[in-house]
């Protein structure tokens, strides 16, 4: 087997006395749609925060394309090709939809203060590239029409899609989606699923955390189940659904979905 795109080995994160993630091992190969599921408080978002450098793992290693990224700054990790969305939407609220995506395209450019003030031809070309990429990303999520509206004036579902566009515009290798379907109605979810498949078809690896089981089972190729920070199992959706400990974990905590 070739080296996985993203590999977590023995990832452990503790907050004070609480162990949020406990010795998690995971391998995500290229061009996979991988889901991470588990009851509330299982530590799913914490895993994302560790991968993207917001939390520093207490123990363990995270490697991306064979490179150790444990404890690196988020902006460096982003530059390597890891993009994400957030469980509780974190848009640049007062900015326009287009500006949100253009900020996402930060990694495309190099222009600094000098470029901003003097605007040599190279910078102008760079701005054009950023604008084109932003337009494409908005097109993909179906928000190009609303590019001049303020981000916080969008509907909930639109905001989630905007976050995806913002993450996608930097042309990442892997896209981490934290509960992308939360708060969406069935039609929106349907559209979202298509969209994610489209993105995956472009060769972007997808890693998502999601509560909606139907959504996950229809979309993911591989599913990892987390409970109390521990991995219970990994497998195809069918395998996972029939796994006893998974059912137990869910029924023990909350209604099975």
């Amino acid at each position, binding site marked *: 087997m070739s080296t996985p795109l993203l590999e977590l080995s023995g990832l452990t994160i503790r907050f004070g006395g609480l162990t949020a993630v406990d010795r998690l091992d995971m391998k995500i190969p290229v061009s996979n749609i991988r889901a991470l599921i588990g009851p509330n408080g299982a530590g799913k978002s914490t895993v994302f925060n560790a991968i993207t450098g917001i939390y520093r793992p207490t123990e363990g290693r995270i490697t991306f394309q064979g490179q150790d990224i444990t404890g690196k700054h988020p902006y460096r990790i982003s530059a390597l090709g890891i993009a994400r969305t957030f469980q509780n939407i974190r848009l640049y609220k007062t900015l326009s939809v287009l500006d949100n995506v253009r900020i996402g395209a930060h990694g495309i450019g190099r222009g600094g203060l000098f470029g*901003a003030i003097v605007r040599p031809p190279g910078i102008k070309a760079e701005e054009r590239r950023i604008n084109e990429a932003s337009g494409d990303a908005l097109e993909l999520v179906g928000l190009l029409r609303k590019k001049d509206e303020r981000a916080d004036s969008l509907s909930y579902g639109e905001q989630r899609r905007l976050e995806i566009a913002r993450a996608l515009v930097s042309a990442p290798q892997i896209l981490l989606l934290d509960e992308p379907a939360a708060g969406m109605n069935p039609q929106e979810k349907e559209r979202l699923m298509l969209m994610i498949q489209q993105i995956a078809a472009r060769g972007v690896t997808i890693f998502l955390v999601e509560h909606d089981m139907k959504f996950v089972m229809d979309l993911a190729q591989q599913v990892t189940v987390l409970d109390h920070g521990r991995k219970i199992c990994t497998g195809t959706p069918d395998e996972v659904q029939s796994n006893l400990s998974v059912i137990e974990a869910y029924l023990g905590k909350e209604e099975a979905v």
Partner: protein
Amino acid sequence: MEELLRQYMNLYYIQVLTLICIMMIAALGLHLITGVTGQLSFGHAAFVGIGAYAAALSNIHWGLPFLICVLLGGLAAALAGVLVGFPSMRLTGDYLGIATLGFAEIVRVILMNMDITGGARGLAGIPRETTLVLAFVLAAVAIWTMYRIQDSRFGRALVAIREDDIAAECNGINGLWYKVSAFAIGSFFAGVAGGLYAHFLQYLNPSGFGFAKSFEILTFVVLGGLGSIPGTVLGTTILTLLPEVLRFSAEYRMMMYGLLMVIMMIFRPRGLLGGVDLLPLLKRMLYSLRKKQTPLNGDGNGRSV
């Protein structure tokens, strides 16, 4: 040019307008730090002070050309800005603001105790070089620069930090670098303003750069509309004029000034121009104007977006 102005304009107005232009440059610096990047600074006057003293001293002691002195003032302030920017790594929000306040007070006390600055006796004998024309041109350049910065990859990164620093980091933005940059650039503006101020007043005293001045500049920025360049311009203009306009009320002047600050804040909590986008407003005005003039020419107007 200045001579011409002096013939047609009351010297007092020239004096006040020059001051407005100078303060505008300083306020635009704070606009970048607090309005654009969202880093609270309660110590902006210290940077103005550092710039003022650096410029004045390089003029008095080295006899450098005036504009070089002003540039040096800006650079000295920028250096101090870098220094203050680093705590922004650990401190956020009000805590950063308080740290900058502390820094500014320390700067003031040091200026007060240094020999080269003349200490409490102040620094006199600075030649008068700042003219209204120059201050106006530099203020215009400052506004232009600010627009350019904000409409760029660099500026967007700053705004992103203000809006959501964690999301910004995840979008590949090095928060510390940009925050320190914002402090450096904003302080540079303050320093340039300080250099002009020194060569305008011809006398400097550390007590002029205390926290009261810092809050005054912060008020310019917030009252005009945080994050808005026209707001900063308007805020500076109104609040610099206000004490002059209120002169009729003699000793109640500052009382009314304080009261007006409260009232303006209550009726426009986001600042006078906060949330008002002048550009579309202006465009719409121009558009309707043009439409009236050329009613038959639909070219360019009918294009769908």
